[in-house]
């Protein structure tokens, strides 16, 4: 099968690329690790750092750069609850330190 055939056969987003965190028109309230976010509400994931296993695990849970998520309990002892892709994830400090977000 050629690439063209594949693109036709698949639902077409072969050209899809990861969306990056850009500087929006609105003032950004927070940009940095999720653990330091002081604001409950929508955030955009900019980057996931840490070892490869953690990144992969986060990716499989939908924590991928460019995704938007909702932070439910910020600053509750540095651990947070994140709503993403319809699920609710609880993360500890080490993990949330590794997720760089920006408020939307």
């Amino acid at each position, binding site marked *: *099968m050629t*690439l063209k055939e*594949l*693109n036709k*056969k*698949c*639902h*077409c*987003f*072969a*050209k*899809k*690329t*990861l969306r990056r965190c850009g500087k929006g028109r609105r003032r950004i309230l927070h940009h940095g690790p999720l653990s330091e976010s002081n604001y409950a509400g*929508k955030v955009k994931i900019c*980057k*996931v750092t840490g070892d*490869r*296993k*953690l*990144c*992969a*695990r*986060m*990716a*499989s*849970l*939908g924590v*991928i*750069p*460019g*995704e938007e998520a*909702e932070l*439910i*309990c910020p*600053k*509750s*002892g540095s*651990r947070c*609850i994140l*709503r993403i*892709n*319809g*699920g*609710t*994830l*609880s*993360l*500890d400090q*080490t*993990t949330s330190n590794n997720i760089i977000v920006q408020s939307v």
Partner: protein
Amino acid sequence: MSHSKITMALAGNPNAGKTTLFNKLTGARQHVGNYPGITVSHKEGYFKHQDHKIIITDLPGTYSLTAYSVEEIVSRDFLTNEKPDVVINIVDASNLERNLYLTTQFLEMGVPLIIALNMMDVARDRGIEIRFKKLSELLGIPVVPIIARSGKGKEELISEAIKIANKNLPLISKDISYGEDLDEVLMELIDTIAEASFLTPNYTPRFTAIKYLEHDDQMLTKGAESNPELARHLEQTVGVVSDHLLKTMDVYPEAIIADHRYGFIKSIVRQGVMTHKFDTDRLYTSDRIDKVLTNRLMGPVVMLAILFGLYQFTFSWSELPVLWMEGFFSWLGATVEFYLPDGMLKSMVISGVIDGVGGVLGFVPLIMFMFFGIAVLEDSGYLARVAFMMDRIFRTFGLHGSSVMPFIVSGGIAGGCAVPGVMATRTLRSPKERMATLLTVPFMNCGAKVPVLVLLIGTFFNEHKALYMFLFTMHAWLVALFAAKFLRMTVLKGEATPFVMELPPYRFPTFQGLLIHTWERTWQYIKKAGTVILGISILLWALMTFPGLPDSQSEYYETLRNQTLSSFTPHVQQELEKRISKSNQLSADAEMLRNKLNLIDQQQSAATLKNSVAGKIGSFFEPVSSFAGFDWRTNIAMLGGFAAKEVIISTLGTVYSMGDLSSENAGSLGQRLFNDPNWNRVVAVSAMVFIMFYAPCFVTLVCIAKEASWKWAFFSMAFNTVFAFLAAVAIFQIGSLFG
């Protein structure tokens, strides 16, 4: 009909309702075992549908099929090795996108698949409408809407699943595009793999290629074993792409793959599969509850209140049934006493069987209420929040948030049992955190230690019973946590694993589910009473009875008895004999004779006990145990506690009652201890500390050995006993110093 016996596998995300559907389909016809070598439960059940006999396996809940966790490996291996005729993928309709992520991987794997779209009712309540026919059409596989809780749609689901099973489809991967960069490499890899028939027929070339790109450890190892040269070539090709992606986009291929899978799902969902009636941004009730229940300040307060409620529920509601059970066993004991002739058999049945097993079965109502309460917390989704909130505290001690469940089950709120507690450590993924939890849960105050504590506190600290009980519960927690910290700093050194957990939405538990969960755990407890404890009680009874008194001493007591009898008139003797069958008032003389005879009986029993094997062991340890204030009789009880903690109280009852079979109620035992010169407040505290922390009971040890190894079981026995003894000695010595 091509199949009369069909194998099915239930797969899906955690909390998607797999187990609920499994219970609905199989009812009680299920078997829970272990996957060989690891401690992930293997649940298999049977049922009949029309003419087909169906064997169904409930696979562990997973989010993906990459080797990130044991569950994922187990699920994937089961699918490749056992090749079930059809895989039922349970998808939570109220959380469609996340759940379909696993579906995409099943599609890529090419297994015969059917989707059970569960929780359609919850989705509807949330204003989500799903056109399942459209979903089926776009994915190219059947989709059946069901409500697992009520069993709605299960018949249709099974009929559809049987249709697929009968088709005997070969493995065909569904293609998903991963973007230009990856697709190009993927094609190249697929061609190479297909040409060399690499890892076929178990995996399709596309699946293998994707796993190589995802850097899946297990697949890389498998590949290297099957064709090292080709594997090296594939790894090199993938390595080049990975480096390129890392340089240009700062991500690993697996992130791009995951992103495209979610993209694929979104593209499907947006083609009219899912419509929201309400604003998609709104928070669901579950999230709103979480805002309060996991709040930094409110969360712990509510958690303590709920745990206290569970404690109240367990202890107050079970009070009456526990009394009934006790009543039943004392009735049984009295009946046996009345009908069986005096002798060895009677003594064995009463002291060995009824007292031993009855003591354990008497707790069944309490255990059942506690497991019911825990099942409510678990099934409602609150326990996951408790784990989340407790993670911070547990982490300080080198444990994991998920350790909270084993601790609670073992008696974190006094009254559990270490056996299910040890088994509950299976939810922990990191081996070291799991081992630290497993070794420290026996420190908790299980249901068998509670009566001993209640007895000793009631006897020696009667004025502040509740306070002391609470203090001892807290003490158990502190010791367990510090012991865990100590283990994690010494023999179990290692990194902490990140706490990443999906919180299930709050739900009303189903009654059937609660009953099944409660029964499963209660049954384990009853089985223990029927087998191990029965054997051990009889063994202990034998240890405490044999070899018996030497003939000369028996004769001495017999002569003493005859002398006493002859010192009274025959009239008084007759009166006492009649009294045995009729409950008349005795004259003063007869009363005196009875007391004298009882005293002789007691002395003889004491002599018998001291001469018995158990008595000799107790006396042997007395020089050492006296540092902690324990005499030989307490030693016998502690020895019995090695077998099962339940035995401590009944042994104390026996050794301090000295042959008086019918007066074994706690009050009088307490009185006897209170009046005994060897017992005082300091000894009581020392004994309680020793009982709380010394070697776990035999059944727990067997469980530790099964879950870890015999080496760890012996370690736990030695470590706990040495620790408990040192603590008891310290308390006794310091306490005695201050009077």
